[in-house]
């Protein structure tokens, strides 16, 4: 398992549009992915689960990936979040 932390910079946090981008990306990756925000663990492959974490601008989240391609997958997720998820 690999993990890393990152700060969300989207103006309105992970609301529907950026969250669904993250969900779309997660579905394309083979790893089991967990996002942890304030002790709440969510699965980003479900946009509803992801949004239930109420991740707002400036929040630091931890991403965990587990699977054969875990290192590449984690890098892809970090890059996508850092680039603002299409916003």
């Amino acid at each position: 398992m690999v993990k890393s932390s990152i700060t969300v910079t989207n103006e309105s946090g992970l609301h529907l549009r950026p969250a669904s981008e993250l969900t779309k990306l997660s579905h394309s990756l083979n790893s089991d992915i967990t996002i942890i925000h304030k002790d709440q663990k969510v699965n980003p492959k479900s946009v509803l689960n992801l949004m239930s974490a109420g991740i707002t601008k400036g929040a630091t989240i931890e991403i965990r990936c587990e699977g054969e391609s875990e290192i590449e997958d984690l890098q892809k997720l970090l890059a996508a979040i850092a680039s603002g998820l299409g916003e």
Partner: protein
Amino acid sequence: MIKVSVSKTTAKGYATGQAYIVRQQEVTIDQNKITQQEVQREIYRYEDAVLKAKEELKELAKKSPIFEAHMILVEDMMLYDGVVNKIKDEFNNAEAALQRTGNEFVEMFENIDDEYMRERATDMKDVTFRIMRHLKGIPENAFLNMTKPCIVVANDLTPSEVSQMNMKFVVGLITQEGGITSHVSIIAKNMGIPCFVGVDGILEKVKSDDIIIMDALESEILIHPDEATINLYEKSAIAYSQRQQEIKRMGNLPSVTVDQRKFCLCGNVGSLEDIKQAILQPIDGIGLFRSEFLYMEKDHFPTEQEQFDAYQNAALLLEKKELIIRTLDIGGDKKLKYYEFMNEENPFLGYRAIRICLDQPEIFKTQLRAILRASAYGNIKIMFPMIISLEELYEAKRILEACKGELTKEEIDFDKDIKVGMMIETPASVFLAEDFAKEVDFFSIGTNDLTQYILAVDRGNQKIATLYNTYHPAVLRAIYHTILSGHKQGILVGMCGEFASDKKAAKLLLGMGLDEFSMSAAEVADVKYELRKTSFHKVQEMLNEVLNASSVEEVLNLIVDL
């Protein structure tokens, strides 16, 4: 004619039209339990409905990206699991299972402590209803009878409903529920049509085809206006759109001098109304928001929530443009109805502004918490008035940090990098400017008080009115010293006194290196016009001579050609 006043306005302007009432499509859901044999059939029915919904959304996504997100939502695995489990384990039919699961998620969103996230409950309702329609075989709510300009009035509008409307006929939008970050608001803003949200009870007051006027400047809805009123508004609407075009032309021109020196023009405001007027001008932000009005218009010290509402509203109106909120500046000539100030010999040298706030930290903290909370909604900066010593500044900043700590503990969002600045309006703050510049993010020179304190001239006393002059060399040198001291530490220096709107003074200040000019908003367009045709280098060249002048007369003679 009936008048309804509204509080949440998201787009500006006027609109007149017939009311077009949107009723929510009603569906009745059979709650009958199914048998074990029917479980698989119900799951198939649900999957089929999801597929059809997705097909529909694929088309819609070409028009608006919000539906791409809806495509992800309809197929969400938690939604699917929720529905299927209710079919398998609780023998709900597909409709009942979907209704229950949808409601669970709507409730989840409504409980999130973030306005923007809460609004997403509407998306959830929208998606659930789309699947439900396919389960029940109901066609989409078509707005076929929309054939003339109309103002749409609804309880709430989902993105799907908006996408079905023929927007070329829609001149305004009113919803009974919803907030300023809802989908409708955003669409209205993009279209530049007025939009009122959260208008309580409007559906009881308006019937289909009633003529209504929306006045987003006065925040009013007029129902059944008479002929004269309609004509009056027609004229206002034309004048408004002409003015908008003018400002747009001017606003689009960059704030730079002929030799490409950038400057920043802001408005000074004392109420939310002022902000609504100010944003019609080519401003880059609000350089001075006098928070006193909140205290003066009430019969009690405004609560944190009352203040938060006002600051949040202000931040949203400005759409990410800078908003500098000056903390409470009462005392001096500004009194409160509900608080007794002791009689003072010299109120301007007395118990006022930051001195009151540091003496009664509870009043101060209430305001700072409200400002911090609102900072999550825009580009807010905090400014302390009347500072004369570093100790005062440290104490004010310490209390601010304590408020930040409280909010973090309470998990309330705020801008963690909020910028903190101070007014330079006392001689002490000028002399200590270099020291202060190391401790704040910006300075704002308040020329009205600074002039009166440097010259020891009461600006309200008519008998000595001629002595009061900001062109006095002592005041000019104090201003220049402040700008240099600020720049030495790399912080921005602005001015929020009316001196910044004096055309000659503005040019002189530009030459001194002033970064931001904040004035009553109505002056901004003129000053922008003047500064745009000024050469920064030319003013700089004459600066030394002006600063060395030893009388007002000499100064005025030197700048006569500016």
